[in-house]
Structure formats: C-alpha cells, structure tokens
C-alpha cells in the first residue's frame, strides 16, 4: 500500500464540476524505498513513485507551457491505493484560472496511462511560494524569456519598497525597470530592459 500521506483538517469530495478547495496538512508516514522525493525539504513535499512522477513531468502548465506541474511545485501530494489515485495540487494565486485546466490535464494523463479512479483535489495549505519552483524550472523560465523569481524574502515591504534588480532574460542586463506589478497572468509582472529595450515578463515572488 502506497498511502504515504495522512490528511488532517477539512476536506471535501471532488465533484464532477471540478476541484473544490481543501485545507490539508500532510505528514510523511514511512516513505518506502522506491519513492522519490521531488523537491528538497521533507515537510513541504510529497513523495511519489517514479512512474507517476514521469507522467506528471509531462503535464505542463497551460499558461507557461515550458514548465511542468512538477517544475512549478504545485503538485503537493499523491495518495494511491490499489484501485485509485488522488493527486493534490495547490494554486499559485487564489484566482488562478489555470487550475481547472491543470486538474483536467493531470486527470487525463493518468487515465491515459492506465490509472483508474483518478481524482485531483485542490489544497490551499501550506500556501504556494515561488521558492517551490525547481532550479530546473527557473532555468527553463529564463530560456523561455520569463525572468525567474528571486527568493521570496526579496520583496517583503508592505507599502513602498525598492525593487530588486531583475535580470533581462534576453540580453542578461540588470539595467531594467518595472512597468507594472501585474502582467499577462496573475503570477507575472511586466518589466522592460533599458539596454536591449525589450519588454519582458518577470515571475514575481510570493
């Protein structure tokens, strides 16, 4: 039995209408040897079998197609029994409209690979942070033309704050200016490079 996560707190059943919001808190119980830890710290991380991990690595974020749901750090847990599988994902931003599409894509990918009784649920705790984007993910973002997020502690001032230098993903200049803290999706800000003059997206820290 691969039930590696225990859930506490509130949960709701996933309906046909799509994912519902959950609170959950998970703890590791005896991860077995064939499971891989996706990202660094154990307290915020799910363990997943390599077969499932490979499938999820091929499910991309529809708004940032260069990143998989694993690179994004939004897969928060996988609960498997002999005849069912439940994947927990967390939204980047509360209103992220991509979550419904991502849920369906995960559902489809697992079903196509022979899994039955697949369910996807949305959890909101612990709150997603850009620190969970993998190093590989950050590299891919920059190659794609989106400046990767800095450490989330970089932008902490509440009312007014100096902005840290963000490197232009094209010419690598740090001579850049923020145009707007809100961009083409909830998770991005709009910047421009003063050297190559190109505007670019910056994945802002939360």
């Amino acid at each position, binding site marked *: 039995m691969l039930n590696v996560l225990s859930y506490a707190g509130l949960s709701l059943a996933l309906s046909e209408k799509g994912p519902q919001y959950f*609170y959950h808190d998970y703890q590791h119980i005896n991860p077995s040897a064939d499971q891989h830890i996706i990202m660094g710290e154990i307290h915020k991380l799910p363990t997943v079998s390599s077969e499932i991990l490979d499938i999820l690595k091929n499910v991309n974020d529809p708004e940032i197609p260069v990143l998989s749901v694993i690179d994004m750090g939004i897969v928060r847990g996988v609960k498997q029994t002999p005849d069912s599988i439940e994947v927990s994902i967390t939204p980047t931003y*509360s209103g992220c409209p991509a979550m419904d599409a991502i849920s369906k894509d995960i559902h489809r990918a697992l079903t196509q690979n022979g899994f039955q009784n697949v369910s996807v649920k949305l959890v909101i705790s612990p709150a997603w942070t850009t620190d969970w984007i993998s190093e590989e993910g950050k590299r891919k973002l920059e190659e794609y033309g989106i400046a990767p997020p800095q450490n989330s502690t970089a932008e902490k001032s509440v009312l007014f704050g100096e902005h840290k230098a963000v490197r232009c993903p094209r010419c690598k200049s740090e001579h850049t200016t923020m145009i707007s803290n*809100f961009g083409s999706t909830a998770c991005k800000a709009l910047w421009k490079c003063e050297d190559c003059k190109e505007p670019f997206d910056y994945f802002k820290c939360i």
Partner: protein
Amino acid sequence: MSNNKALLEFVLRHGDNNLILGHRISEWCSRGPFLEEDVALTNIALDHIGAARMLLTYAGELEGGKTEDDYAYLRTHEQFTNALLVEQANGDFGDTQARQLFYSAFAYVVYTELKDSKNEMLAAFAAKAIKETMYHLRHCSEWVVRLGDGTEESKQRMQKAIDNLWPYTGDLFATTANDATLVREGIIPDVAALKPRWYDMVKEVVTRATLTMPDANAWMQSGSREGRHTEHLSYLVAEMQAVTRVYPGAKW
C-alpha cells in the same frame, strides 16, 4: 451549533467582501486608463474572486450542501453581508484606487492576525490571501501617491476620492455579538481593535501623497452587518446574477 453559525457569519462576511469587490473591479475590464493598468485591475479582481471562491466554498461546507454558486447567484442583495465600502461605484480611477487602499489595508491587518487562527481553514486562507493583498496594497498606494503628489487636477481629485469614501470606512470594522464569541475562542481577531493599525497604514500613504487625512472621528455610515446596504449593491447583484436568473442551472 451556535458557534458554527457565528463562524458561517464571519466567513460569509469576508467571502462577500471579496466577491463584491472583485466583481466591482472587473467592471474596469477593457476600460482601464491604459493597457497595463487594465491588466493590473483585472488581475486584482481575479485575486479577489479567487479569495471569495475559497471562503464561499467553505461557507457551503459549514452550512452543509451548498456551493459557492448558491451564495453568489441565489441570494438577494439584502442577504449579502459585505462591507459598504466595497460595493461603492468605481467612480474615476482615483476613486477606485482610494477604495482599494482602504480595503487592502483593512484586509492586510485582518489577515495578518487571521493567519494564527485556531481554525485551520481560516489560517490557511489568510496565509494564502495575504501574499496577494500585499501586491494590491503596494500597487494602489503607489497610485494614490502618484495622483496625490501629481498635478493640481489629480491632487484635487485624489483628495476628493479619499474624502468621499471616508464615511464608508467605519463599517469595515463593524462587529457582531457572534464575532465576540469567535474572538474569545481564538478563531478570529477582534476586527474593531485593528482600526488604529489600519489608520496608521492609510495615513502613511495619504501623507506621502501630500494629501490631508480625513477626521478619524468623523460621522460614519453603518448597516452592512444588518443587511442594510447602499443603493449601489442591488444594481451590482442584478448584473452579476442576470444569466443565472434567466437561465437557472445553465452550463457551458
């Protein structure tokens, strides 16, 4: 059981604040003063709708057998419990930024305390929502300063926006006997007691904008906790619910 009712009341209050403000801001979509700001306003609207979905879904669970849509689409305007401030019309761009400053500073001080709630769902919600709230707060603060400390025309209009919306800020902090029960149990913060912290935040922005802070003890509008709203809410609700009312249960 009565505790559950008190909790439901608080969750609906904050769910409604986010729903109504999110819907109100979404009216700016395609009407922003320039493209980047249009995008910013709609992003902020989306964050509020996301926060509303979490809270109203939770309310449905507390009440049993209800969904977020039941609350958004099947209540009359008298049944909404949002603060009077968030239903106020968008006005000009300065009015919208003043409203956002008052609300986001309020949300910030409430969520800062709510993060430590003994209720795990509320704590999780606040930890999530505060990150977005900080972006909203910074964004509108920058606009209030830019307009307040701008041209003669922008300064005068920004001051007018602050003064006109000020009487609706007292109602943000309205509490009920049910709230007091939850405060005692460590489930919610005493919202009324957070007002000085909110005032200081707003004052910092208004002062930096070279504007005059309204009188802290000015007469205030009230009534949202008892279902008495300003005339603006019923129009908003009518528009928000139009499709559901005409085509109940419609799907696409």
